[in-house]
């Protein structure tokens, strides 16, 4: 049992040095972020064991199994849904509904991407929607830039609404014991408001791009569905997962277990080749998360995160200043998430907030503030969220004149959008603070 100190100890400094070194490797991209996280985890266990504040058993306990397993299962379900062509079908139908009105097309595509991102990983959603969006824009002879940026930004916002929409939410939900419904009820209205205002802002910012065109969308949506039987099976499994997400708390099921129930349905109905199924899981992301959990577990075991909590407890404990603390958490989380990957930040700050709870602080509003901050902050810069990088890569690859999104070009729109959405969220958070308690 580790005894916590109110003073900075050598163990804390050692753990801090290892975490700092690992994060420098991750953010500098000297090594791939997964490699850096694995190295950091191994060093943390080795150093922690030698110093006596960490062990292999504690490292394994530090891994958030619910997050890792849920992501694994959902990646496999999406891997079965993706080749069916359902997303292409949706995109083509929406483009036809828009009837050549670029503004309507942007709203429809953004709405679809946002809603799908509420239940599926938003990176996957943008990976699927970006190429078909470029093709639609190419056929309509309009610039795909505003559509790609809107899809990435609004998928980030949409993903912030649910427990499973974004990995940080899942980590927050697991740490805070927040179920799917509670997360949706607390985050949904604020995120919907932010989404609506952000769409209006994007329509205004890109108004010169969004023109009415006469070109016909010469794409056959009927040919998009490659395997109707597989589509029905995958949709059935996904529907079961979504229904169980709403019920998981009442049934005492972990979200990860719910996802595995859906996966089992797919496995039984489709009997996919194991090599194909497992080949489509993004193991790199999962290994990255495992590495981060182990690194932060070491820092937590050293007592450093509790020490940080002690420095904040006097401010956070005051009920009159709790809302202010929440707003500070939201804005700090957003600004840091715009500059660095929001996952390491979330993994690091969760134990600090949990530590505050043991000191008598009502941390519930801080969870919502953190979720809003990390969810909206990613829109600020091109590196703030992986979905942004996917949109940029697609804009560069398409070769359409004027479509390439530069980092400066992203920030020119992203930073005002981030600040605008944060202001909307802050107003909602402040006005309805009692609902976040």
């Amino acid at each position, binding site marked *: 049992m580790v005894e916590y100190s109110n003073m900075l100890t050598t163990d804390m400094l050692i753990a801090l040095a290892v975490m700092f070194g690992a994060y420098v490797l991750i953010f500098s991209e000297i090594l791939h972020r997964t490699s850096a996280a694995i190295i950091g985890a191994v060093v943390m266990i080795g150093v922690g064991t030698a110093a006596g504040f960490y062990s292999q058993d504690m490292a394994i306990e530090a891994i958030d199994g619910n997050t890792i397993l849920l992501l694994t299962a959902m990646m496999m379900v999406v891997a079965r849904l993706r080749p069916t062509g359902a997303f*292409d079908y949706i995109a083509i139908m929406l483009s036809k509904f828009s009837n050549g009105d670029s503004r309507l097309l942007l709203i429809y595509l953004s709405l679809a991407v946002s809603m799908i991102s509420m239940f599926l990983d938003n990176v996957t959603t943008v990976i699927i929607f970006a190429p*078909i969006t470029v*093709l639609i824009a*190419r056929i309509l002879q309009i610039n795909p830039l505003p559509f790609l940026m809107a899809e990435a930004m609004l998928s980030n916002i949409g993903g912030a609404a649910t427990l499973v929409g974004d990995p940080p939410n899942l980590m927050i939900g697991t740490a805070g014991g927040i179920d799917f419904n509670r997360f949706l009820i607390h985050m949904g209205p604020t995120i919907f408001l932010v989404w609506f205002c952000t769409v209006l802002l994007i329509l205004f910012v890109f108004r010169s791009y969004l023109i009415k065109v006469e070109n016909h969308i010469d794409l056959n949506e009927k*040919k*998009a569905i490659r395997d109707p039987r597989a589509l029905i099976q995958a949709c059935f499994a996904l529907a079961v997962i979504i229904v169980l997400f709403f019920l998981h708390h009442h049934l005492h099921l972990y979200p990860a277990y719910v996802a595995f129930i859906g996966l089992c349905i797919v496995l039984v109905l489709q009997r996919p080749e194991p090599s194909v199924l497992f080949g489509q899981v993004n193991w790199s992301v999962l290994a990255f998360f495992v590495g981060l959990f182990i690194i932060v577990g070491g820092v937590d075991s050293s007592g450093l995160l509790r020490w940080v909590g002690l420095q904040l407890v006097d401010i956070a404990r005051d009920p009159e200043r709790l809302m202010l603390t929440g707003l500070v958490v939201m804005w700090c989380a957003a600004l840091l998430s715009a500059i660095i990957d929001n996952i390491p930040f979330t993994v690091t700050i969760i134990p600090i907030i949990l530590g505050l709870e043991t000191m008598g602080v009502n941390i519930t509003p801080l969870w919502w503030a953190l979720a809003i901050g990390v969810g909206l902050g990613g829109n600020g810069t091109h590196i703030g969220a992986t979905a942004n990088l996917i949109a940029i890569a697609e804009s560069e*690859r*398409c070769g359409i004149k004027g479509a390439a999104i530069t980092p400066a070009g992203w920030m020119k729109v992203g930073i005002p959008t981030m600040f605008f959405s944060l202001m909307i969220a802050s107003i909602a958070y402040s006005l309805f603070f009692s609902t976040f308690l």
Partner: protein
Amino acid sequence: MKLMDVVVPTGVVLPGMKIGDAFRECTIHNVGGLPYCNAEGNIVGRFSLRHTFKCLCVPDDMAHHAHLLGDRICSESTPEVVSGEILNMTVDRYIIENVATITPSSPVIKALSIMEKFNSNYIFLLDGERYVGVITRMAIAGLLLKYHKF
């Protein structure tokens, strides 16, 4: 059956050559690609019809969704091809670095295996450092028919 029996002798692509000239050499000999040689005459890459078309007029988003395309989009999407502008461009930006080669003493099955591995319809035959010609699946199939008088 020997590879020397099926080899298709062709010219090579040189730095600064126009795409139109490379296209002509490919179509005359019915091959999908040609070796790209530097000023010293060494093969340092290959000119591929597939790669050139892919780079110039078949963007990834279109190729990925090819099954969805209607019949009224091509002329709008590839003005450079329609106008013939691409024929006057130089080959250098469209060269692929990896080159599959084989020697005259190699068996046909090896040539077919390498083509399979490289997902290519052709392979270059080198006798030492000297370029001999292109081996294609089409030529192998033709010789097989001729050999067995099928």
